[in-house]
């Protein structure tokens, strides 16, 4: 469904992605894990069109997305829940959700989806008219996910949904992702929190310094000592000795 072929991207002069190839099949939950600065967020930004792709190709549902701007990409059914949630702080919860469906023309169904979303997230319903900035971190994360779902995406990408949240809240967020998985939403998930992500996912990719160094079934990656090494490094010989 989604296919990246040797994608390279970066910021200014800084090269970050040095040729990423991966794919996500319909109905799958795929996670992308790796340490700080491995290029996970950059990968999602490149797919979503927020960062120009220097080389390589992004294909989605058989169509080339490589040079499309983000506002076009979301129309093709690819939504991103950005890192740090990024809710529109001064707008109400409802307004945030409505903006998630900005590009949709089917007004009636948008109304319905909005009701449905508030029903699915009772916490949000209670605060429907509050500015989103007054919500707690966990509630904002729920709102960000709900907002992305308002676009009726065929594939949902999530950038570190557990970042900065207490473990109890992380569990709640993952419950929601689990529900989405059950109803058949395709997910591409980025996590530093590898254990939680690998528990949910069907397959996983491990990134290190702009490359994919490992991939396989999530169950296998959970047991792989290489994964831990990718995060914490091996002992190196001290160079001055």
């Amino acid at each position, binding site marked *: 469904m989604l296919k990246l072929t040797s994608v390279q991207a970066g910021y200014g002069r800084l090269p970050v992605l040095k040729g990423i190839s991966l794919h996500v099949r319909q109905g799958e939950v795929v996670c992308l894990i790796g340490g700080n600065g491995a290029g996970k967020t950059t990968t999602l930004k490149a797919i979503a069109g927020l960062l120009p792709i220097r080389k390589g190709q992004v294909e989605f549902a058989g169509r080339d997305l490589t040079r499309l*701007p983000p506002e076009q990409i979301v*129309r093709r059914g690819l939504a991103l829940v950005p890192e740090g949630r*990024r809710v529109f702080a*001064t*707008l109400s919860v409802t307004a945030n959700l*409505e903006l998630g469906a*900005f590009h949709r023309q089917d007004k009636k169904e948008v109304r319905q989806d909005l009701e449905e979303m508030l029903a699915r997230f009772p916490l949000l319903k209670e605060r429907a008219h509050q*500015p989103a900035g007054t919500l707690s971190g966990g509630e904002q994360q729920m709102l960000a996910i709900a*907002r992305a779902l308002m676009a009726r995406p065929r594939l949902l990408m999530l950038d570190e949904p557990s970042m900065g949240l207490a473990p109890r809240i992380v569990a709640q967020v993952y419950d929601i992702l689990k529900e989405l998985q059950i109803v058949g939403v395709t997910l591409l998930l980025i996590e530093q929190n590898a254990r939680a992500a690998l528990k949910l996912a069907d397959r996983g990719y491990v990134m290190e310094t702009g490359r994919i160094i490992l991939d396989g079934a999530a169950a296998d990656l959970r047991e792989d000592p290489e994964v831990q090494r990718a995060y914490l490094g091996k002992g190196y010989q001290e160079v001055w000795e």
Partner: protein
Amino acid sequence: MFLQQLLNGLTTGSAYALIALGYTMIYGILGLINFAQGEIYMCGAFVAVLLLASGQVSFYLAFAAGMAAAALLGLALERIAFRPLRGTHPLVPLISAIGASIFLQSLALLLFGPNDRAFPMQFTFQTISLAGLPVSTLQGAILGAALLFMALLVAFVRYTRYGKAIVACALDRDTARLMGINVDRMVALTFLIGSALSGAAGVMMAIYYNATYPRMGLLPGLKAFSAAILGGVGNIPGAILGGLVLGIAESLGAAYISSGYKDAVAFVILILVLLLRPQGILAGWQRH
């Protein structure tokens, strides 16, 4: 006397508020001071005056045409003078805006000459007595129209899809794009609306002072900018309040201090606000 000055101040202040809304919205979304806002105001006034003078159109049509012309001018400015400069040092678009302002002013001077033009008004206004206070129906009409425009704008921003999208772009451009919002289009829409409001203010002030001339936008433009700062840039209710407060302060200052320094009042307030409370009088209140 005092109440009369207050009313005069409210009238000019409502014009400042309308222009200040343009400044504040454009600043909110682009972080740019559109120095040429005063010339957009002038353009609205000229188009309405010229159309009415031709005798072919009704007052309301001329008013609408003035607003439309101002809106188009705003759009053109955005495309020509600002869009190519996005992402540069903030001084660069500021200087470009100054260039655009001089250009438009001198263009108007070439096309229409330096002299004042009277406003060919089709109605007559009276002065009625309201609780012992002489009130001109013209002032009432201007105030009423200005408040109507402000209310429309606030409703637009708060309740419509595009209004919310503009706020979203001002808050977080990248995330707005992820929602499928075309930021360029929202910027253009912001220029369109802000400029139309300035155009409306131009027509109203052309009627009020019965004078339309190429440099008419200079001082109101600068004062409206002060009003926007006074209200806290990017803050829509703030811009309205700032405009009204400034108009009143100016009117009272002229009456009780010295009419020679009338135009300096706005700048003294501006400098004081920037030094003492740069976030504006409404800071801490909810934006938008």
